[in-house]
């Protein structure tokens, strides 16, 4: 079990800062920020929600414990006026998966880059920028990756029309 030592570290950073509310939660209900989830039904072992300014810290914890970056993606929660950025990590020895979620405002979609920690995040962040227009602050080369060089649209936003 590689997730156990991580749990307390995540809890320490998750309570600091103020993560945006999670979709589906009852208003006002306490939302656990660090969640152990069953792998068999979710495919995820540890579900962590952190605030945008804590994401680098959270990723550093994983990097120190030798986790592998699998993917970064976004979800556009139009109704809540939020973007969710999802980081998937896995461990090559145990096959466990940690998902770090960050919620940011749709009006000011900005969060710090992790491409200096994980080189592979470079392309994933560029892709997320392509699709959602999320700006990763400090990214060395935030230009369209999959879309044409001059693309100024973000197709996976729910309010996108061609």
């Amino acid at each position: 079990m590689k997730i156990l030592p991580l749990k307390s570290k995540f809890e320490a950073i998750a309570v600091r800062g103020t993560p945006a509310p999670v979709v589906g939660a009852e208003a006002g209900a306490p939302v656990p920020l660090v969640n152990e989830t069953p792998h068999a039904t979710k495919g995820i072992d540890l579900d962590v929600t952190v605030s945008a300014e804590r994401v680098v810290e959270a990723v550093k914890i994983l990097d120190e414990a030798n986790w592998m970056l699998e993917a970064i993606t976004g979800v556009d929660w139009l109704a809540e006026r939020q973007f969710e950025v999802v980081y998937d990590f896995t461990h090559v020895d145990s096959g466990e998966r940690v998902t770090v979620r960050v919620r940011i405002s749709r009006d000011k979609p900005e969060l710090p880059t992790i491409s200096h920690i994980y080189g592979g995040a470079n392309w994933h962040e560029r892709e997320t920028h392509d699709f959602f227009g999320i700006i990763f602050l400090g990214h060395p080369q935030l230009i369209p990756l999959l879309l044409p060089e001059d693309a100024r649209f973000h197709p996976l936003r729910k309010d996108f029309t061609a």
Partner: protein
Amino acid sequence: MEKQVEVPPGLIHFAMLDDVLNMARANSLWPMTFGLACCAIEMMATGASRFDMARFGCEVFRPSPRQSDLMIVSGTISRKMAPAVVTLYDQMPEPKWVLAMGNCAISGGPFKFPGQYGIVEGVDKLIPVDVYVPGCPPRPEALIEGILTLEEKLRGKRCFPTVEAR
């Protein structure tokens, strides 16, 4: 609507020469090594042992557009790729032919949906196409049939038996 321009008949005919030239061209269609997506694998399979395009003298896949006669558009043309496809077509010397292989190259195929943002719906929006080979992807037999159809177009008559004739 474009105006139909009537082409006056030529004064001098080189019928025999034209026939010989077209016969030679039909039997030596060198395609360009140009794969776009799924259909490219079937294009490779067509060149490989079981189907063997070499029988008709068109297995010489030239990597440079300057030396190829036939552009097999094998796959989806994304909007990012479209300028490159046009450039490649322009780089080919005359006479040149285009074979649109697969539904994506014909019309956008399965990737055409209302609100799509990324593909060109058919290569004929970019460059003139001589033969369309439908399929997703077309089987190698279909591609060979497409090439034979192109030969038919060049020579004005079919030299190989069709399926119906058998």
